[in-house]
């Protein structure tokens, strides 16, 4: 795996950052929620204490038969339809006398009027028959209202759907007569399920206690009433629980931003609440769905109960808050859309009895916005951090690998195939380990270069040093030849001379490569434009006469092939190749000289029949001192021939190639020149 990829993998560790951030935000959110809970509880306790001091605590109520009158801000239209009730989110309560809740009832007040709404489910509606028993036939709704110490019963019946007015029976001079009470009026409307009745009367008329019962005209059975049983319904009126305006006003004092307060009585009905729902409905732009989804995933959101819309109107009965009526404060976190709502209730205690509970609802804009702000920041910061760190690491890795690559290339390039120093190794100046490595490689390369140079010049130094003693030997022998000596002595002298000659040749050979290298370096600028075709022709003639025992063939091209070369060097290379070819050529074989033009590049080949090339690594044939010959005769062989060929071709930016013939009858050595030297 490349270094940059490794570091990129390592940079994935940066993702720990957002994870840690998320953990932190979660902790923070929980802490913040705890804190808010505590603050709210404290504030509730203070409020409760204050309420208690002011003596505005509600009276305990008898849950049985109580009728809760919901506050309503607007006039309700008397039309027999309940859309306006539903629009005000007024809750209704089911009543039943025979176990089957068939009566739905709700009551409301706007402060002056008392509104009643009945919805009765029954299979058939029986209308009032005016000639029947007065007010005791047909489907009817009886209202019991406390007037002073008496209870006045009103009956709402109708001969047909439409406007209705309550009637009651008045004892007047010993006769009962049906009197219309015009203050209680409303609309009767039939529905597919039965009928519904919307009534209104002045709130003042309703008094403190109230009861109703619904009687089916067909069966004369009660279908629902506020009373606990039929016997007592006339006398035991339920309590009419009206909104406690005074308490509400007191609560307003404790109102805090983002908050609303309410008081429920001991039956769980909300009897007072702050007038306005003081929660800032700031319309923030909805965050991107992914971010929003992340919020929910990250914040402990999903297990929170949903906020119920009817809680807004005070319908706390099934909210869990009413558990406070048992004496324990309750705190409840809920969620609504993208918001938290904190609900809390605290029991209100009067004379040791729980008379109700103080309820608070607080939006938790703060928590959410804080979390969201943190989250946004975390998100962007971690993103930035990740990008920066990854980018930084990637860049760093690239830089490192660039340096390593450079080092690698420099190392590869500075020593050529012969193990000779080709270029100065560029040592780095940087102080880090790579710089040290580079410097130590540079030092190593220099040492290696010096050593190689020493070895390289050893031959010529040696030959130079040996030449002087050789001259002593030779001149002494020459002088000796002029002295008087026997025949045997002359033989020895001639042998010694022959030995000295061989030694001289050996020394020449040893320094030949070095001399040739120097010469190549010197003559690289001494180029001449030469016709290769003519040159090969000359060479063919020359070799034919030099090696009379060998058959030469010439395959030249037709047109002149002019090139800028150093002809002496090329001829010298040819000499070596031809000398080799002649040595290896079969007795009845031939040596072929060939000039070809391969894709614009001239190629001179020397081909001979004979044994194939040994199985050696590529190019090793052309190495210095590499010989695959078996010793042949007296001729000195140091394996420099092909090395010189390669040097010459390198000087011409060309290539020296060796291969076996395709038909395996011999070998081909080629000098491939570049298109233009």
């Amino acid at each position: 795996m490349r270094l940059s990829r490794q570091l990129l993998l390592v940079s994935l560790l940066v993702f720990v950052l957002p994870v840690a951030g998320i953990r932190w935000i979660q902790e923070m959110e929980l802490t913040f929620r705890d804190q808010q809970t505590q603050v709210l509880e404290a504030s509730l306790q203070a409020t409760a204490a204050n309420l208690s001091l002011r003596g505005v605590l509600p009276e305990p109520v008898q849950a049985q038969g109580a009728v809760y009158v919901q506050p309503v801000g607007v006039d309700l239209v008397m039309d027999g339809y309940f859309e306006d009730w539903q629009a005000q989110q007024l809750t209704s309560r089911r009543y039943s006398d025979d176990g089957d809740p068939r009566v739905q009832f709700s009551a409301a007040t706007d402060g002056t009027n008392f509104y009643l709404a009945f919805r009765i489910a029954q299979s058939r509606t029986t209308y009032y028959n005016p000639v029947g028993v007065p007010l005791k036939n047909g489907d009817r709704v009886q209202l019991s209202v406390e007037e002073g110490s008496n209870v006045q019963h009103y009956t709402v019946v109708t001969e047909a759907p439409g406007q209705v007015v309550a009637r009651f029976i008045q004892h007047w001079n010993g006769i009962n007569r049906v009197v219309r009470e015009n203050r209680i009026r409303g609309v009767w409307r039939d529905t597919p399920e039965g009928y519904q009745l919307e009534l209104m009367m002045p709130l003042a008329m309703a008094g403190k206690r109230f009861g109703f019962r619904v009687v089916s005209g067909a069966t004369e059975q009660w279908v629902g009433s506020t009373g606990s049983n039929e016997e007592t319904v006339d006398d035991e009126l339920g309590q009419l629980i009206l909104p406690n305006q005074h308490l509400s006003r007191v609560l307003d004092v404790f109102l805090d931003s983002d908050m609303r307060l309410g008081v429920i009585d001991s039956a769980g009905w909300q009897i007072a609440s702050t007038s306005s729902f003081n929660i800032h409905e700031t319309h923030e732009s909805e965050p991107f769905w992914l971010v929003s989804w992340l919020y929910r995933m990250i914040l402990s959101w999903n297990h929170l109960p949903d906020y119920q819309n009817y809680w807004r109107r005070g319908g706390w009965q099934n909210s869990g808050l009413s558990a406070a009526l048992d004496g324990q404060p309750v705190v409840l976190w809920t969620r609504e859309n993208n918001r938290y709502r904190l609900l809390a209730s605290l029991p209100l205690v009067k004379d040791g009895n729980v008379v109700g509970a103080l309820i608070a609802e607080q939006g938790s804009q703060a928590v959410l916005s804080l979390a969201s702000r943190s989250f946004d920041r975390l998100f962007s910061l971690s993103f930035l951090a990740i990008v920066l760190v990854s980018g930084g690491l990637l860049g760093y890795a690239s830089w490192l690998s660039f340096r390593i690559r450079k080092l690698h290339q420099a190392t590869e390039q500075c020593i050529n195939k012969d193990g000779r120093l080709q270029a100065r190794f560029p040592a780095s100046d940087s102080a880090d380990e790579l710089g040290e490595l580079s410097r130590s490689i540079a030092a190593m390369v220099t040492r290696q270069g010096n050593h190689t140079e020493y070895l390289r010049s050893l031959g010529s130094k040696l030959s130079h040093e040996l030449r002087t003693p050789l001259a002593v030997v030779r001149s002494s022998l020459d002088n000796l030849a002029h002295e008087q000596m026997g025949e045997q002595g002359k033989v020895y002298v001639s042998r010694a001379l022959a030995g000295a000659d061989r030694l001289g040749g050996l020394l020449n050979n040893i320094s030949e490569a070095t001399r040739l290298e120097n010469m190549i370096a010197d003559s690289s600028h001494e180029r001449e434009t030469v016709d290769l075709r003519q040159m090969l022709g000359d060479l063919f003639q020359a070799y034919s006469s030099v090696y009379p025992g060998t058959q030469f063939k010439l395959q030249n091209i037709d047109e002149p092939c002019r090139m800028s070369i150093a002809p002496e060097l090329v001829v010298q290379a040819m000499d070596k190749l031809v000398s080799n070819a002649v040595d290896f050529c079969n007795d009845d074989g031939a040596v072929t000289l060939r000039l070809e033009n391969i894709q614009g590049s001239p190629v001179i080949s020397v081909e001979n029949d004979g044994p194939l090339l040994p199985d050696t690594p590529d190019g090793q044939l052309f190495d210095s001192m590499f010989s695959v010959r078996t010793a042949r005769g007296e001729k000195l062989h140091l394996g420099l021939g092909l090395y010189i060929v390669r040097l010459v071709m390198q000087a011409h930016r060309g290539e020296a190639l060796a291969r076996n013939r395709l038909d395996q009858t011999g070998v081909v050595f080629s000098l491939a020149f570049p298109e233009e030297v």
Partner: protein
Amino acid sequence: MVTCAGFSGNAGLIKMPRHIAIVEDEPAIAANYRDAFQRYGFTVSHFADRPSALAGFRLGLPDLAVIDVGLGDEFEGGFDLCRELRSQAPALPIVFLTARDDELDVISGLRLGADDYLTKDISIAHMMARVNALLRRVDMINVPKEQDDVLERGKLAINIDRMSVSWDKQPVDLTVTEFWIVHSLARHPGQVRNRQQLMDAAQTVLDNNTVTSHIKRIRKKFQAVDAGFGAIETAYGMGYRWSSQ
């Protein structure tokens, strides 16, 4: 240290004994050469280093100086000596003798005005021939002759007796080796002379490369006189020929 040997032997070529100075730091070689030269009838002085040689030359100039390039600790003391000697005696024939045969040494040696340049592994017979040839040339220059043996090839004129060459009537200053090479080529125009033949003609045992560099230098010397000089042609693989045109 000056060793003077008296006249001995009878070389017979020259009437009076010639005086040859050998400047060589290797005593064995110096002694061998001295013996050889004496055998051929020369008077020989041997100097082991540059200062003693200079001192000796101040007393009297030899007829010919054989100087080793490396003299003791002085790596190129021979070259320095040659320069100083040349300033004293512009006409004195100087032969370099050295174990170093690198191209560079050849060139710098000849540029300093040496008349010839021999490697130490030359045989004594060869060396004698070269020295005699040099001395002969000096004699010819000094002694005017009625009728010289002159070889003419177009613009080229070779005075074999004086060992002088001119091109288009302008003298070309060649060393002995170069002279013999040019002479060998020009004698048979159009005929290829291979390296061995040229070496034999020059009576030297230089290797192929040295022949090549000699040819190169000869061409340059002629080109200095005539930029369009192209009479010496290369026959690749075989040698060189004098253009018959």
